[in-house]
């Protein structure tokens, strides 16, 4: 079977969701291609100042 199935995954989008998917896959034995439109990963969360309810720095 494994000759038909690839052990790699394409993740489209490097925001918080895409990054988490990519991390889980890579940590579980899959090769990940993480695609991001801009020049850095991070997505919208990187633009946020803080997150509630802990008021932690979003970065």
């Amino acid at each position, binding site marked *: 079977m494994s000759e038909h199935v690839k052990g790699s995954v394409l993740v489209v989008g490097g925001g918080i969701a895409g990054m988490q998917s990519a991390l889980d896959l890579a940590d579980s034995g899959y090769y990940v291609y993480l695609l991001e439109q801009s020049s850095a990963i991070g997505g919208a969360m990187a633009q946020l100042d803080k997150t509630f309810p802990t*008021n932690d720095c979003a970065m």
Partner: protein
Amino acid sequence: MSGKPGNFSAEILKRPRFVDVEKCIACGACAEKCPKKVDDAYNQNLIKRKAIYVEYPQAVPLKYAIDKDHCIFFEKGKCRACEKFCPSKAINFDDKEEHLNLKVGAVILAPGFRAYNPAGDDTFKYGRLPNVVTSMEFERILSATGPSQGHIRRPSDQKSPKKIAWLQCVGSRDVHRAAHGYCSSVCCMYAVKEAVIAKEHAGGDLDCAIFYMDMRSHGKDFERYYNDAKEKHGIRFIRSRVPTIEPVDDTGDLILPHVNEAGEVEEERFDMVVLSVGMETTPEVARLARNLDIDLTEGRFCRTDTFHPVRSSRPGVFVCGAFQGTKDIPQSVIEASSAAAEAEVLLSAARNTETRRKKEILERREGNKTPRIGVFVCHCGINIGGVVDVPAVRDYAATLPFVEFVTDNLFTCSTDTQDTISRVIREKALNRIVVAACTPKTHEPLFQETLVSAGLNRYVFEMTNIRNQDSWVHKDAPDKATEKAKDLVRMAVAKAALMSPLEEAEVDVNRRAVVVGGGVSGMAASKALSGQGYQVTLVEREATLGGQALNLFRTWRGEDIQENLAAMVKSVESDPLIDVCLNTELGQVEGFVGNFKTTLTCKGQEHVVDHGVTILATGAKEFKPEEYLYGKDPRVVTHLELDRKFMNHDQGLKSVKAAVFIQCVGSREPQRPYCSRVCCTHAIESALYLKKINPDAEIFVLNREIRTYGEREYLYREARLAGIVFIRFSLETKPKVFVDGADLKVEVPDAALGHSVGIKADLLALATAIVPYKDEKLARFFKVPMNEDGFFVEAHAKLGPSEFASDGVFLCGMAHYPKPIDEALAQGQAAASRAVTLLSREKIRVSGTVAYVNPAVCSSCGVCVEVCPYSAPSFIEKGPFSGKAEINPVLCKGCGLCVSSCRSGALNLKGFEEGQIMAMINEV
């Protein structure tokens, strides 16, 4: 994209960056010299950046890129200033577009959202009135890295505003123009957060008012945050839709006319208005979906179904985040892991076939010999070298005891320097390394890898920060900065001389998982694990699988729950890798990550399971109220009882003339200050179903506000169009239910009408709270905490929603927080995905920085045992040191709490030994 699940071929266009990421050292010289200023999109165009730029200071990768559309060279054919000043020759104007063809087994779509642009809306005059900003702009204004370093200034005159208003539902819950009918799910909470933070930044005299329709604080701990905003922070919440914003001459101030709850028109003046803009799928993403042949919903989100919440309509293509539907960070993170789990199951046969393994380099056993220290001093471009006399620091380091080699580098972190360090370690037989450069927070792992590649233990490394803590803060005193750099290097060398190699404990991982709870989330977790070849013991205390879903009729999308649930139960029961233990509870738990030993008790019989990970999916239950005549009048039912009537095709429902739904029964009350999340949607879908089987019935939904988040909002609209009446009450004006003769009567004051409404009801459905089981025993077994409400507390509210802080223990479903089936199921898969990151490893390595006990000095007082949050210390049971403390290095997190609490000085932290710290202090 072509191909089929397991084997896709994807065409990718890679745009040129014009900067070689291998060479770029992010020194910033290029951007400093670049003459072209460009709107900074990261800062919402509130300030400028250069045409060569990094997105933001913490960007990953921290590598510059040229914005081709604005670069003078690309516009006019000359300039190339960046190229001239780049010290590492990283600029490459000949960089070209690349077409890549990737062969992958699965695809996960996580393209995100964009914020709604209110510029086209006449109501708000955004773009025309400078002090009307969007919430994303306000996030930047609040941020320390934003345009005003976190000081709140309004755009028109840079004055600090004294009164700020937030307008909710901008672009959401609005079917006009370019706006969207759905609820964006996140704006209520971010507006509350922005208001709280704004008040924190500005001090006490800032007035914040939020104009809203329904406050949607339906997430975990959100209601509490909302209550605190009102009560502790004094933020005003005004229930009103503001129809227009009017400028006050040219003062920059703004007038908001609105109708208050009593129906009177009021006006209030503000210095600044923040528009709480919603989320939308971009046209580009919609086009991508069309190209990939993926179905979208009415709101242009990826279509999924309740029982497959992250599967798109195309097999092998999964979805997560805001493209699956508007959602917040924790739910995005849950779905991300869920989508990963789906891909892992699909590609399980090919696990580890394409990953690359680093070549392991044997560690030289040299650590205990006489120290031979190498010191590398970094210029960090001009960051350090522009202030500190780096060659002088280097020469000084050469005079220190045990130092055998010194050098300085323009960038110690660059790839070629790593090669140099590695070579020098071997040539000079160095056995301790000191790097004087930037912060260990970002760069320590890199240098440790270099040590390992040269055959040294990763712990014989010390980094001292002569940038952030020296050159950056003492720019104006270069001589003193140089002296300080020498001091810091001397301290680091003194510590390094006393360092020794540390061992990282290795633990074998048992490949079995125990899942506690056989509801939807527990079953989803079990299937996601067995689908990847792992054995599962699924423990359920009841006699059947299914949990609360057994009591539910239909999903909000209209899917039949029992039919789907039965299929799920069948697939779990027939799975050879899942050992289903019904009527079973946990009797005893021992061990730790990788090696748990759990005693299961089933009908008086005990048996022990060895397992590597545990998933808690113990669910929650329906609250049984004592108010509103529940239990006293047969016409009063809970939602689950109503669903039972629907499932049983209860004929009595057809003769109902008037039905009343009362919301928030036991939720959002002082003794239970949380929202149960699912009840608003469930009431509306039930009301609509009742209307369908009995079109003549009059239906009233008495609510405190309606929280139909995401595309559930369509149901709310449909219900109003179907003639279902929504009447609002407050905690102080709760409805009265009484029996008058044979009649069941409901009376509720209607704020809009100004008087009470009386309804003769044939059916009264109570939306009772979802309450946790508060299983203290389970919490103790796995050392996991519960919050004030009795729900388990996850590792991190935003980034670790499906795992506990205790290693190897995971969390999903309603034990985490009340949630609908799709979200419970996604979290079950997410917990499995997180667990597989451990199960797929042969051994787990834990950090070498752990505490240890000198038993000869230990006084057996037990303080360490008490203070440790991870249960790492315990008393030795046998042998010469029986009664003394010892530390289990596998459980120890190296926090040092026990070390600082030990009265006898028996505890020490490896890598931060008392001798090492004292040596550093002695050198100051």
